[in-house]
């Protein structure tokens, strides 16, 4: 008989052990691949959203500038996905030289910074979290802000 010298228990343990190792390897590799892809896609998506927003901020800057930095009302709304690959995200406008649009996804945490060239001041007093985002002129701050609609 082929099972001579091998107990049934040992045979079970060997078979189960080897199968478990192989299968868990497959699962770990598979889910790792999915997680990697997700992070990459979030990175790309935030970059695209950031660039679109940076363009909108520059457009709002031109409008504000044409009014000698004192428009009565100024807003440009743009609709983006509520979540990036299943993760909520926030958008902030950071003043500096150059000013930056900073996008951060919550889980996994991916942060993207996109430079934007503006002549009017920008303020980080407000922030937006996906969906329809408004680039607006804040009369009180005398600066451009990003906020939720």
């Amino acid at each position: 008989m082929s099972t001579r010298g091998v107990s049934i228990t040992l045979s079970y343990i060997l078979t189960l052990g080897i199968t478990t190792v192989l299968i868990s390897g497959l699962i770990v590799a598979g889910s790792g691949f999915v997680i990697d892809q997700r992070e990459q896609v979030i990175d790309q998506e935030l970059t695209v959203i950031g660039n679109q927003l940076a363009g909108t901020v520059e457009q709002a800057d031109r409008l504000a500038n044409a009014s000698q930095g004192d428009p009565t009302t100024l807003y440009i709304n743009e609709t983006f996905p509520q979540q990036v690959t299943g993760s909520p995200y926030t958008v902030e406008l950071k003043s500096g030289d150059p000013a930056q649009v900073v996008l951060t996804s919550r889980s996994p945490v991916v942060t993207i910074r996109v430079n934007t060239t503006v002549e009017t001041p920008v303020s980080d007093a407000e922030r937006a979290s996906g969906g329809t985002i408004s680039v607006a002129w804040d009369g009180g701050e005398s600066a451009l802000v990003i906020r939720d609609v």
Partner: protein
Amino acid sequence: MADIERSVNETETSERRSEDPEITHKPGSPTAAGAADVTPVGSREPRDRGQLLLITAFVLAASFVALALVVNSAIFTENLATREDVPGSTDTLTYRYEVTQSLGAALEYVNENNNSDQASLEDAAKAEIRTISAQGSFQQSTRGRVVNVSYADAEFGHRIAQSKSGNFSNATNATRWQLADGVERTRAFRIEVTNPNGINETGETFQVQIDDGSDSWELGVVRNSSDLELTVETSNGDTARCRRPIDSMMTIDVTGASFAGQPCHALSIQSDGTPMRFRTGVADGYEIRFTNGQDIEGRYSLVIGSNGSANTTNLAEPSDPPATDGPFVADAIYALDVRYRYHTPDLGYETTIRVAPGEVST
């Protein structure tokens, strides 16, 4: 029917089997479960060991679904990347510029035709603004935009002009005279020369002098054989020139820095390359003077702001028909402030536009 009969037969067979202890039970094994212990190992494998594979398959299936969602997001990103700007946002400033240009032309018309007093100027300007707003908003509404232009404020000043061709002397034929004093802003200063061939090459040539008492800015017009030459001398002693071949009529746009229809660098750049414009280096509250007005013939027009008074002894009041061919002064709107509103579904822009055509930016 045949299928049903067969299944009925099978059920009967299995019942018969379970009733037969010799087939399913070994002696001494009272339950069906106990029977598994003695079944050969090989025959039990497919039934029991599949669990692990099944769970793995489920986990992998779930991760593939997740991967599909991730790939879907990636595709949507491409879609997002190729989006245009917010619709209408680029036209906001284009239309604003159109409005400014139209109102500029309307303002010139109003200043020339409705200049009896400030109230009639204001009424005429308001009417023009209403017309431009109505026409523009109708046109823009067909493209899904709401546009409105309305009157906000006006800065009154004076327009000094000579609208019939003649030499540049004052109302009493003096050739060295003051047009205005205490001026802070001048716009749309244009001179039309109708006798370019009669202008002196040297000697007593025509000059526009802008002087604040200590510094001056001077524009001279001289003939250089078959060319007409502009000479601009700033307070720092710099002199710049530009010349154009003589034509029957030549226009000098003093504030717009053009001569005979082309840009004139003498009016916009000093000889060392630094930018310059009308009255560079002269402080606010300057006087505008003409010297040697007998050497030039033609027409001119300029508008001065509220801070500045025209010299009424040198200038006549306008009347209809004109009492004099000489220079006159009339009330004028120096600048108009209008409220500009532009709305699309995604964009809102409201601001005040200042309309002062031909104004030199300071």
